[in-house]
């Protein structure tokens, strides 16, 4: 998956699942929608996307998606190689 290519239009990101701390690495095009990355991650880890929350440095990635923001790409978020996205399961309480 990651063959050490350092193309400028791709970025290597890691997604860390908070439950087990396991990191999954993705190399993706910068122009791709984050949504795709999230879906890929959930599929890989057999998780329900609806119960997951993705954050990047404290900014929720899934929650604030608007039709416009669906276009959110890595450039806009300023993501760089090695940046970490947190995948969190939604929690609740009384």
């Amino acid at each position: 998956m990651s063959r050490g290519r350092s193309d400028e239009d791709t970025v290597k990101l890691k997604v860390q699942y908070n439950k087990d701390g396991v990191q999954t690495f993705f190399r993706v095009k910068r122009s791709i929608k984050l949504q795709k990355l999230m879906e890929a991650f959930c599929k890989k880890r057999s998780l329900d996307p609806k119960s997951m929350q993705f954050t990047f440095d404290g900014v929720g990635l899934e929650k604030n998606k608007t039709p416009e923001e669906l276009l959110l790409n890595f450039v806009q978020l300023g993501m760089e190689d090695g940046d970490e996205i947190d995948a969190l399961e939604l929690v609740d309480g009384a």
Partner: protein
Amino acid sequence: MTRRFTSDSESPSKRFQAFEFNADDEVVEKQSAKMIAKFRNLMKPRNKKSTKNKYLDSPIIKYKFLHCFTKNLEKEFRNEAIDVDAGVAHGTKTPQKEITTLLLDDDATDVGTVAEDGGAAGEEMPGLDVSVVSSSPNHEKNQVCAISDDDERIEMCSSSTLVSSPSTSEAPLEEQESYPGSGGYEIVETATGDHQLESRDSRAAANAYKTSGQEALSSLDARYGDVWILDFDFSKSFEDVIYPQGDPDAVCISKRDLQLLQPATFINDTIVDFYIQYLKSKIQPEEKHRFHFFNSFFFRKLADLDKDQPGACEGKEAFQRVLKWTRKVNVFKKDYIFIPVNYRLHWSLIVICHPGEVANVEDEEIESSPKVPCILHMDSIRGSHRGLKNLVQSCHSRKIHLTVVSFCFIMWNVFWRKLLLSLAPLRSSPTF
């Protein structure tokens, strides 16, 4: 009254030990751990296949858990010789009294810290809780009145844990807090214990209060149900709502989240984050720079709560985990930092007051400073978050303390958020 941060003679570093717990807390914590283990074991065989999600998704199960938790505490304390603080103990006729004595004892400490740090008039007050209570009755009235307003509907899910309009301003905080549990259902049993304990100072008032409080609570609950029946039809489709539009911290509320606002359900982080955004929108624009709100993930990340076996929160590691979160914000310039905490199926709130003052003010001056740096933890179900002690233990040296402060610590319940917000703009020091 047990205070661990009372006198001026205590060393400055001691004063900063925001999460200092006494031996009694250990008991509660052990119980809590035991119960959680038991509960998990109980649940596992039934849900072999469907596992965690199912377990986590059922509010009823969680409710049972909380109930189970408090029940067990009761049993356990009955068998133990509890060294209860003289100012608090009023005899141990019933097991319930014993529990609440313990709980009260602990809470008193928290409150004491707050009062002292804020330089409040806590000392003059006869009851331990009064220093805080003194400001809450009014607010409480407001809160309860506000509940019927349309735009306050969201708050109701948490506000329903409160008793409406206290019959007397003497009524200690104990009374107001003694109806925990989002639906005000089973957990009320624990609350009864609180009343018995409290009744030394204002026994008559407490009894009156208890009755009126319970009535108010049940009427509130009924009204809450009505609102839902009237205004929401869950069979209809509901488009996701983005709030506030265009904000980078915007929250997306789906139908699924909305359903959590129904009576007797647990609220999730989306709802909590929404409420934070809602409160933020109520702050005057010129005041906004004074506050910083972390979202509900911050504490999870900081304390690494998602691991199955959360260990002690190593200051440095914790710092690294959330280092980037505040790269655009100087938290030390903020007057109040709010951190919602979800821990063991319960929400509470940490508020860090005037973190910047720790660096600016010399230890001797802190006493007289109008802005006293302190960390408050607000928890509507007393004792339920004591386990956090293990997570945030390393605040001994001043240096480490700064680190801890930078990550803000006051846990509050949704209700408290509102209280603080209504008070904070008016005062420069945290003398709640």
